[in-house]
């Protein structure tokens, strides 16, 4: 059988890939997608690391994380809409009026 470590390492890889994606991508939307990858890696880790009754709890928690992701997605998309309306662009690097 597959040891939990494999799942955990997979989760870690996905998480780090999400991080890398966050840095590589250049618009708000895709960067947020990267964050979603990280969140999912978290979910995987939840399930991978728990055993027995714990994994039932972990499933419940995963549900909440998904809810969080959904909520963030909603607000996030509206923030992005807001930015897009003002600037006609959602390039992250163009958001640098505030600095210094």
């Amino acid at each position: 059988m597959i040891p939990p470590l494999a799942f955990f390492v997979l989760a870690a890889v996905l998480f780090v890939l999400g991080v890398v994606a966050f840095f590589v991508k250049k618009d708000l939307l895709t960067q947020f997608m990267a964050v979603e990858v990280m969140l999912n890696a978290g979910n995987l880790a939840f399930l991978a690391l728990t055993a027995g009754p714990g994994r039932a709890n972990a499933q419940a928690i995963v549900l909440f994380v998904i809810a969080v992701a959904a909520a963030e997605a909603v607000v996030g998309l509206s923030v992005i809409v807001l930015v897009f309306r003002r600037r006609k662009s959602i390039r992250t690097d163009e958001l640098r009026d505030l600095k210094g």
Partner: protein
Amino acid sequence: MDRLFWLVPLVPGASALLLMLFGRRYSRRAAAWQACGAVLVSFVLAAAAFARLAGGQAALEKVLPVWISAGSFEASFSLAFDRLAAVMALVVTGVGSLVHVYSTSYMADDKAPTRYFAFLNLFTFFMLVLVLASDIVLMFVGWEGVGLCSYLLIGFWFDRPAAARAGLKAFVVNRVGDAAFLVGLLVLLTQVGSSSFAAINGAARDGRLSAGLATLAAILLFAGATGKSAQIPLHVWLPDAMEGPTPVSALIHAATMVTAGVYLVCRLNGLFAASPAASAVVAWVGAVTAAAAAALALVQNDIKRVLAYSTISQIGYMFIGCGVGATAAGLFHLTTHAFFKSLLFLAAGSVIHALGGEQDMRRMGGLRRRLPLTFPAFLVGALAISGVPFLSGFFSKDAILTSAFAGGHYVIYGLGLAAAVLTAFYMFRLVYLTFYGPARMEPEAGLHIHESPRAMTVPLIILAVLAAVSGLVGLRVLPGEPADLFGRFLEQVLPRTGRYPAPPTEIALILAATASALLGIGLAFLFYRRSPGLPARLAGRFPGAYRLLVNGYYVDAAYDAVVVRPLVKGAGWTYRNLDLRLIDGALNGSAAGADLAGRGLSAVQSGLVRDYALAFLLGTVIFLGVVLL
């Protein structure tokens, strides 16, 4: 009345206070009268107390409340009128009264007579405090107080830059001495545990004060005395002090204040007696000063500066006396000098007055007949200071030189004798240049020459009489016999430590002294009456020596180059480099550093989310690294 001797200083003091407080409300005349009156009252009180002493009482004492006290330090307002103080007090109030009276006329046309009289009274007050204090700390009050008054009066015409500068110089040079005085004071206070003169002298005599410390303290105090009494090396202020009004020169810079150093040494005779080394220093400084200053007087053209150098030289004599153990003789010379030197100054003042302020002897001459009272008075003074027999200076100077010789201080004696020749010479140079020969003043000034009013001439006459006869109190019935009147009177205060020479020696010494006086006068006659071109030729022959004398041995220049300028320059350099550049620079630098750090942080805060996330990631990685390792 003699019980009230402690009022002697207070009366002029009160008068000075009133004059200073209500200066504007006084009329000229009222101020003058009050000032004279105060000093006269004080003179009368002093005389009464003196009478009491003469009646046999040892001393009058008055301890007013404790003044400064903390722990083992205590100083009190304690006054004592012993025989030493009595002599000095009489001189101060006596000459002081005359100078006050003289001033009423001399300063009649001045802008601020009230201020003048206030300062003069204040001076009298401090001088009397100095004299009467039986506590050395209290004496220091008078000591510095007279210095202050000297400063104020030298700079009386403060709108003249030279006067202001001279006043400052006097004060600062005095302060240099006073700093040494203060250290000496500290040595005594901590070692003796009391500030009274009796205790200090007592401790020195019975050996509680070790010889080394006694020497240290004595030399430090004497350093203070050299400042006040204008001895080498702190003599530089006195010639400049002639910027002050002439009566002031007469009182302060001739008769009283400048002799305070001598008085101090007399006061502390126990201490100095306990330290032969210190006494030797005193004698040597006195001797060198006497000769060197007399030489300087030779080349002065300003009538008052001649007298100023003369004063320095004469005080040197007094110190010789104190240093060789003839303390009473020193004090005796102090007394006679007070009379004849104030006489000379006041007479010179009369001359200056007559010439409308002219002080340069090269523009005088032939005044003999035009100032019929001043001239004889001056002449008496000149003869007295030159040591012409039977005038006061002869007795006092001789007493000192005799003691020096008898004590085996032959070099000192030789210097003194040389100084005597020089003294006679420059005094008569002065006499000849001023009163004889052709009139060299501006024709304009020559028209107004007149004899001074009575308020000025009467003091001259009185002083002339005193200068002539006061030496008699020092007359010894027989040579070799210690019982001269003056010395006997002071015996209990100033025990004589030196020896007297054998009578034949003494007669020889007297003759030598007389001869030197006459030699000096004769030379002056030769140089300035017979062949007036001689001095210039002599100066041409020895230009180096002449320049040395004219420039006062370059002492002022040396001080300027060695002390003053390096100090000011160094301070300026330090200020610019240490305070402004280094310390402030470090401060401003750290502020700039903080600013720079802020600038760096601002630059990092680029506004790019990517960078922010990078920082976040960095933090996390480090954090986790710490956790895992």
